[in-house]
């Protein structure tokens, strides 16, 4: 296990973490500001992936496909917000979980009816199919580098938006104390609409970007929803900074668990036991991390609400 290998795995962990961050950022914003648990975020992610894949295939332009996916997903989100989520703002989390779980069930059947039950093709943009030689010994997938870049750019953009703009100030005010913000004359309704659209755009971006390296299929939203929820809970619900740190933490722990745990166990345990235990432990590393964090800090690493 040489230095380059370890470096590469760190990069992989970072990459996976940033992928999770793209999805978790929208989720945590919506949750933090609107106090609304929107499980349908996973469905928006799926919508983004499907639309981007289909547009990319027919138009040949990946960038165009991503943009179309974002716009279309915002429209879908607006519809969902108008029909369902809007009525849930004043309800408890359980009601929100139940109703948006209902949205997931409907969305999955709808996608099946439109695009069929089989996974669909989501090609990698032609210019990014191969690897880039990062170091002499380290080729790295070009597309993953783009993902890393987009993830960091989104993180930076959100940081600037939340901390250095008027909208961000309103958003933070809404997140830390809704009634106080309303009292001070913040038009919370408009902030909500903005945040919901932003969340949908981030979900669509995540879905569109994941398509070329993953299966675009029904249920893809639920599969990644759980790690994304783990991320926002570890980070402290509502905290974008927390989501960023937690996403990188989960990405690194998950990747390190898979890359280093099995060989380490093989070194210290009998081979048959190590072969059974290693992958099993690597598989639950993320959950162990969350349980450990919540045991020490029951409201996550960066609690957004006092």
């Amino acid at each position, binding site marked *: 296990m040489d230095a380059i290998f370890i470096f590469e795995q760190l990069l992989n962990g970072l990459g996976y973490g940033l992928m999770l961050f793209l999805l978790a950022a929208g989720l945590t914003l919506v*949750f933090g500001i609107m106090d609304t*648990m929107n499980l349908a975020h996973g469905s928006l992610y799926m919508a983004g992936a499907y639309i981007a894949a289909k547009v990319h295939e027919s138009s040949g332009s990946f960038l165009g496909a991503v943009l179309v996916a974002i716009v279309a997903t915002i429209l879908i989100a607006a519809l969902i917000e108008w029909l*369902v989520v809007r*009525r*849930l703002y004043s*309800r408890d*989390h*359980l*009601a929100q*979980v*139940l*109703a948006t*779980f*209902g*949205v*997931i*069930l*409907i969305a*999955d*059947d*709808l996608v*099946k*009816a439109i695009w069929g039950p089989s996974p669909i093709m989501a090609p990698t943009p032609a210019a990014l199919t191969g690897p880039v030689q990062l170091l002499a010994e380290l080729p790295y997938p070009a597309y993953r580098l783009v993902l890393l870049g987009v993830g960091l750019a989104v993180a930076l953009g959100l940081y600037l938006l939340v901390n250095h703009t008027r909208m961000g100030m309103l958003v933070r005010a809404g997140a830390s104390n809704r009634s106080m913000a309303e009292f001070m004359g913040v038009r919370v309704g408009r902030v909500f609409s903005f945040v919901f659209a932003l969340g949908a755009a981030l979900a669509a971006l995540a879905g569109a970007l994941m398509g070329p390296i993953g299966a675009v299929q029904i249920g893809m939203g*639920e599969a990644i929803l*759980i790690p994304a*929820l*783990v991320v926002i*809970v570890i980070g402290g*619900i509502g905290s974008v900074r927390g989501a960023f740190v937690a996403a990188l933490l989960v990405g690194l722990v998950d990747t390190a668990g898979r890359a280093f745990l099995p060989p380490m166990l093989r070194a210290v345990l009998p081979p048959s036991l190590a072969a*059974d235990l290693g*992958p*099993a432990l690597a*598989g*639950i590393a993320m*959950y*162990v991390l*969350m*349980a450990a964090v*919540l*045991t020490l800090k*029951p*409201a*996550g690493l960066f609690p957004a609400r006092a």
Partner: protein
Amino acid sequence: MSSVATLPLPAGAGARPRSAASLLPWVVLAVLAAFPLIAPAFGLEYYIGFVRRLLIVMIAATSLNFILGYGGMVALGHAGFVGVGAYTVVAMVEAGVGSAWAAWGMAIVISAVFAAAIGAVSLRARGVYFLMITLAFAQMLYYLAVSLRTYGGDDGYGIYTPLSLGGLDGLHADIFYWVVLALAALVFAFSSRVAVSRFGHALMGIRDNETRMAAMGYPVYRIKLVAFTGAGAVAGLAGALLASHNNFVSPSLMHWTESATLLVMVAIGGMGKRWGGPLGVAIWLTLAEVLKLYTEYWHWPIGLMLILVVFFAPKGVATLFERKEKTQ
């Protein structure tokens, strides 16, 4: 003080005369008990097994309703305890135990131990954090079961010699049905009773105002932990019965969607209502069974129903019956 008593002191609630509503459980029990005897005459033998499964899931839902409805603990890992119960039966079978009572008893004990340990950690968190940490533990159990080669892992584990009910074996072909019915009735009666006991009142107090309860001297954490452990034990019983019902156990029992489904069933039925669990299970499973007969697109009507329930019957279907009870 301007307000004058609008109501006299309610006479001890126990002195209430027996109404039609209080007879309802007995009527339901009688109908269910007679069902296997009547069903063959109408060619409904298949539904004996269906109702048996319904009753088992009702046990699990009732246990969840106890912590969710009465205790305000929104747990998304309850299927984990169902799985622990089922896998305890598998482990007992693997170890050569043939008695259902021994296996089920052990399932209750082991799932209580798991629930106590998981609850001890999880109950320090609140709200969504509690929900997620219970989910995390259930996922750990799920992945553990998937990779446990001895008990079949993802392939599941078939129980080829059904467990023995001791002296009850051979009394009737459907004896297992009545055993399940008796246990379900017992769980229902027990949870209804606990709800009006000191413990139940304390638990509901914690649900409504945890800080106040602590300030009044209640050992809040211990009460919640006992409730969580008890609910886990009963869920374990449901898992053990499910293992005997299917004679097959697989990790899919513990998948997080199963926990979510239990939660949904209780919410549809009515949280904190004693009929909430049974009603929710009956509605959900019957609907799924019927819809699947007619279409491959059977998820969306359920999703739609879920949304409608949240909007129009936010306290569950059981409240519709409650209103009727009052007007009668």
